[in-house]
Structures are given as C-alpha cells and as structure tokens.
C-alpha cells in the first residue's frame, strides 16, 4: 500500500481524541472507535500517530485494529452496502442476495467499486430478524430483500449525488 501523507489537521484531530481519553493505553479501543467515526477508516499512518500518543508500540495498535471486525484499514465506498449473514437471514436466502450484489457490482466482499461509490461487506445480525434477509446501505435498512430487488437498490443510489 502506498504511504499516505496525513494532513496536519488530521494529526491534530487524532491527538485531540487521544488527549480526551487522557492518553491512556487502556482506552485504545475507545480511541479507535472515535477516530474511525471521524476519518472513516484506520490506515497504518493513523495507527502510528495513535501509538505515539498513547505511548505504546504500533504493533500492539495494529494487533487490536486487525483483531476486531468493526475496525477497517481500507476506505469504504460512498455507500457501504452490508448484507446480514446472521443465521435467520441465511436461512431466508441471504446468500443468493449477496451473490447478486457481487454479480451486479462486480466486486467481492471487502472491496470497493472502481468509482468509489459502493463497498460490499457482510455483517452478523443487526437484530432485525423479522425482516430477514436484511441489507443495509449506510444507515438505511432494507428488509425482505430478494435477488430481483438488488438492482433496484443499486440504481436508487447510483442517481444520488452526495455533493448536493
């Protein structure tokens, strides 16, 4: 992965977040949550800053980031699509829905489309099992999704322009 140069402003932001937790090593997970919610992801360069601020090794930070599935080192698409692969969704056909998304977007789970619009991930149970199978695009939940609806969901977001 090519090295990213972090903006001065970003580094300041990370430092502020670390300071708000008193730069305590034990608060690492809370720090990571906050930083990811601001930046969207946690690239190596960000982890280096955090390690320095909390006075711990980068390896330890990296160990924690990669351990938990909630943290990601890759930037997400503009519209992150998550397909619930909990058991309830699975027995109601989530796998077919997932493969239809893969086919339509031509990406695999964990990847982002070339135009940066969509990224695809699977998640474990959002707890809306009554609506199985469930698909989330950003914060919006789509329930009882069938393969033919997949294209419609994608089309709906293709037309959205975030700048507006």
């Amino acid at each position, binding site marked *: 992965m090519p090295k990213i140069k972090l903006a001065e402003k970003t580094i300041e932001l990370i430092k502020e977040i670390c300071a708000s937790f008193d730069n305590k090593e034990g608060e690492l997970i809370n720090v990571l949550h906050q930083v990811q919610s601001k930046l969207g992801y946690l690239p190596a360069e960000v982890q280096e800053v955090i390690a320095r601020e909390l006075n711990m090794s980068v390896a330890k930070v990296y160990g924690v980031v990669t351990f938990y*599935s909630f943290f990601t080192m890759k930037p997400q698409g503009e519209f992150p699509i998550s397909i619930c692969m909990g058991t*309830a969704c699975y*027995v109601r056909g989530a796998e077919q829905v997932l493969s239809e998304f893969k086919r339509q977007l031509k990406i695999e789970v964990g990847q982002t489309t070339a135009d940066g619009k969509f990224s695809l991930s699977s998640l*474990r149970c959002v707890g809306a099992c*009554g609506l199985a199978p469930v698909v989330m695009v950003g914060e919006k939940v789509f329930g009882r999704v069938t393969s033919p609806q997949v294209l419609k969901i994608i089309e709906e977001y293709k037309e959205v322009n975030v700048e507006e």
Partner: protein
Amino acid sequence: MADYNMHVLVCGGTGCKASESEQIKNNFKKYLSELGLADEVQVITTGCFGFCEKGPIVKILPDNTFYTQVTPKDVWEIVEEHIVKGRKVKHLLYKDPKNDHLIPDATGMDFYKKQIRIALRNCGFINPENVEEYIARDGYAALGTCLSEKTPEEVIQVVKDSGLRGRGGGGFPTGLKWELTRKAAGDQKYVVCNADEGDPGAFMDRSILEGDPHSVIEAMAICGYCVGADKGLVYIRAEYPLAIQRLKVAINQAKEYGLLGTDILGTGFHFDIELKYGAGAFVCGEETALIHSMEGLRGEPTVKPPFPAESGYLGKPTNVNNVETFANIPVIINKGAAWFSAIGTEKSKGTKVFALAGNINNVGLIEVPMGTTLREVIYDIGGGIKDGKEFKSVQTGGPSGGCLTKDFLDVPIDYDNLLKAGSMMGSGGMIVMDEGDCMVSIAKFYLEFTLEESCGKCTPCRIGNKRLHEILDKITSGKGTREDLDRLRILGNVIKDTSLCGLGQTSPNPVLSTLDNFMDEYLAHVDEHKCPAGQCKKLLHYSIDDEKCTGCTLCFRNCPVGAISGEKRSPHYIDQSLCIKCGVCLEKCKFGAVLIR
C-alpha cells in the same frame, strides 16, 4: 400515564424503526395536534413488542388494540376512525392464520397466551427514555428494599434461593457467582454487564436494553451492593447504536434521581456505571476475553482459574453477568425467591427469552417458562412453519449449539435437557429450519462463523475448525467420502476436548449434532453426490424439458454466462460445462420447463 385517556404505543425497536416507525409516531403527533387531541391522547415510543414478524406494531390503550404492519400512510385512518370515532381499523388488525378471524385485542393472540414475561416485563409497555414510567411499574423498589432493609448476604441468599442461572449460555448459578465475588479479597471490585450479544439470530439483550434499560441499571446497582463494588461497566456492542443511546439516557436520568452516583437514596452506598464498547468479536462474549477487551487489548481468552471473581478487570475481583440475567433480579427481589422458583423445572427456574427466527410464521422475541416444549414454542407461539412446509430442524444455542430433529419436539426446554439432547441453551437463539434447508450446509455455515471469529490463540480451534470446514466443503461439492464423515467426528471431538475456551469447546457442536441427527443427508451427499434439499449448488444439475420448452428465449437472454443456446420457437439446451448453477433460468421460465435435479 396519568392524565391522558388514551395512549398510542409505537414500537421503536431496531426492526420496527427500520420500517419507518419514527415517521409513524411523528404522523400521530401531527394529526392529533391538528385535531386538538394532543392533551388527551399520548403518543410514546416503546421497546420491542416481540412480534417482529408483523412490524411495525402500533398498540392502542386502554382497549389493547394491536395493529400490525402499519405504514405512515395508515396513521390518518387510525386517528380518524379509531381515536375519533371509536371504530377499529379492521384491515390493520392481526388476523389469526388458523381461521382468518380478526383479533381485536392483543391478549387474544396465541403468540402472547403462553408467554410469561419477567425479563421482558416492561418491553413494549413503557417509554424507555422516561425513568418515571419505569418507577411507576415498581422500578427501583427492589434497590430501595435491598439498601434499606437487607444486608448484602441476605440479598445474595434470595438470589441463591430463587435458583436463577446465568442466561448468557453457561447457566452458572447467579447467587453463587455473587457470593464468590463478595468473598474474594480486594479493596476495589467491579460489576460487569455483558451486552456483547454476538450470537447471530439472537437479539434479546438488545431488546431489553432498548426497551427497559433501567431494569439492568437497577440490577447492577443491587449486584454492586452485594459484592461490594462501587463501579459498574457495561460492555456493549458498537453495532447497537440505539441500545447505547437509550442506556446513556437512562444512566443520566438515574443519576438525576439519585438512583446512581454517590450516597444512593441517602444510604451511603455509592455506585456508578460506565459504558465500554465492543468492536465486533464473538469471542468477547467469553468472560476473560471480554475483560481483556475492556482493558483495551485484543479480546483473547485466558485459562481459568483464576476466575474473574478472583482476578478480573484490572486484576480486581469482577462479577460478570449477562443482560437478561440482570433484568430478572429486580423482580426476584420484589416478588421473592419462592415466587420465582415456582416457575420452571427442577433445575432450571424462571423463564427464558428466545429469539425465534428462521422459516417460521411468527418471527419475534418470546419469553416462556422453563420446561415449555419446543412444540409449544414452534407451533403455538411461533404459528408453525412458513408457507405450510414441513418442519425439519430447530437450532438452539447459536454457533455453539446443535440441530434437533422432530423427535425432540416434546422435550421440555431447560439447560440440562438441551445439553442431553446434544445442543445447548446458549443465549437463546432459536432458528427453525424447514425441508428446504440442507443440514450439511447449515453445519458449514456455522463453522464459517466460528472460523472467522476464532481468536487464533489456541491451535485446536484455529486449525482444527479450518480442517473441519475444508472437509464439509469437500462434501458439499460432491467430493466427500465415507472416511471424511469419520474424520469429522474424530476431529470434532478432539477440538471439543482440547480447546482453551468456550468458543472452541463448543464450535464442533453444529457438525456433531447434524452427524448424529441427519446422517442420511450426509450419506446422500457422500454416496449419491446429491443434496436432498437442493441447496448445495455444486451438486445441482439444471436441464430443459424438450416437451415443455416453447423456445421463448427468455432463459437464453437472462443467462449470465451464456450457457443456454437454441433457436427461437424450438427447445433450448443448457451447456453443463458453462452452467454456474445460479438458477436464473429456473426463476425466469414461465412454462416450468427448467428441471432441477
């Protein structure tokens, strides 16, 4: 709920929120104030009603009307017809699937008749963001009783006598756990609430926190009093934003009312609660892993002993209980141990919440007395199998549990009976499967989960489960042999015996239980290279019936890989070497000419 003469309760659980329940509530408020009824009719958002299948749910009190699948557009009709004119809106009432009778009143629904709600007592009845509604339903009375009338030992004795066992899966007696933490030496102790609900398909902890957060806060304070801790921590999944928000609101309200913080109720007892966030790791449901995660480390388990009761969070004595366990405590204190222990079976007292999901008519959250049979849960409460299909299996205990056949339908559900049957209680996920589900694929599905969630610390779990998965993959691809079935069993047992923590010790259960209960399906895959349920894609064979094909070209035009060829108005043909078995042709064909074998 004092001055109003009518109440509209709108479900604000995650499922119903996803179906625009917020908009429904806003519409109610808007229309009611337009009609000048805002002071007479109260509109509140409640926690989950449990009947998620037909959400969003709107309930009207005092007549207990239960409206299902309400949309924001229906609100005007409910206001005009029901609230103004007093006529129920028939097309939104729940219809009994057995006889198509409309049910005007929630108490008449089979779904609720067999339930006893203790942990879920307030879910769907109160506004979770208003502490006064909780107090109006005996909230914080138990804390008051404990602090002013009972010694910690006496409270622990009540919990012990009640027979309450941990609802997170282990089933360890709660009172005993409290006593161990109390007796442990240490100046600082902690109470931890495990709200890291990782079991896919289970959502009881989330619903309790969303619908009745104060019950957990009150119980944690009681626990703190008993074990001698002044600090509580809730370890909650970051994936539950609504539960986090409601919990934060509730903690602040409790502090305002002097029910948390310093000198609670003037008794000199201090107790505070802090939130810690999980980050998506199933293994963190295990006590020691959870504690490491709270310390900011990788959530890897460590060998017990020492148990958290001796050396837990930051090396101090720590009592860890699950959300549902805590939610039972205030009721036990208020109504007494004898009342609680009269419910349930000999060794499993009280009730259990189950998340009923899968191919069943009434998906939802239910609470039944221990000892209820699976048949009662699936057929009476759950309303039977979806689309009139045949019941095949019920999976309990999540990725650590097993798949039970119809032979077990009459077994009374409790910790020990489920273990004996080769499954387990777990946190209470209950997934129903029908004839269209392949049990080998289900076992593989669970193993994929374990594989992803294994922390990698111990070898049997990290490598053993990978090998198990490879064998299952071989079988579902039609390349398995009988020897592979033996290997599954031997390896599964080795993993169970040698893994470090609960995750590895139970991960082979879905495989072992399906081997025991559905051997014929494994044999069909291995001997005949067939999947009886038609789920294993690689074993499917699509072809076109010459007699029925009209040559409409629909399949040809829709095939994503160009495997179908043929002239217009003459029978088409599928090239097996190109076919990816996606099933599009079968879905598109209007003449039933695509055959599947």
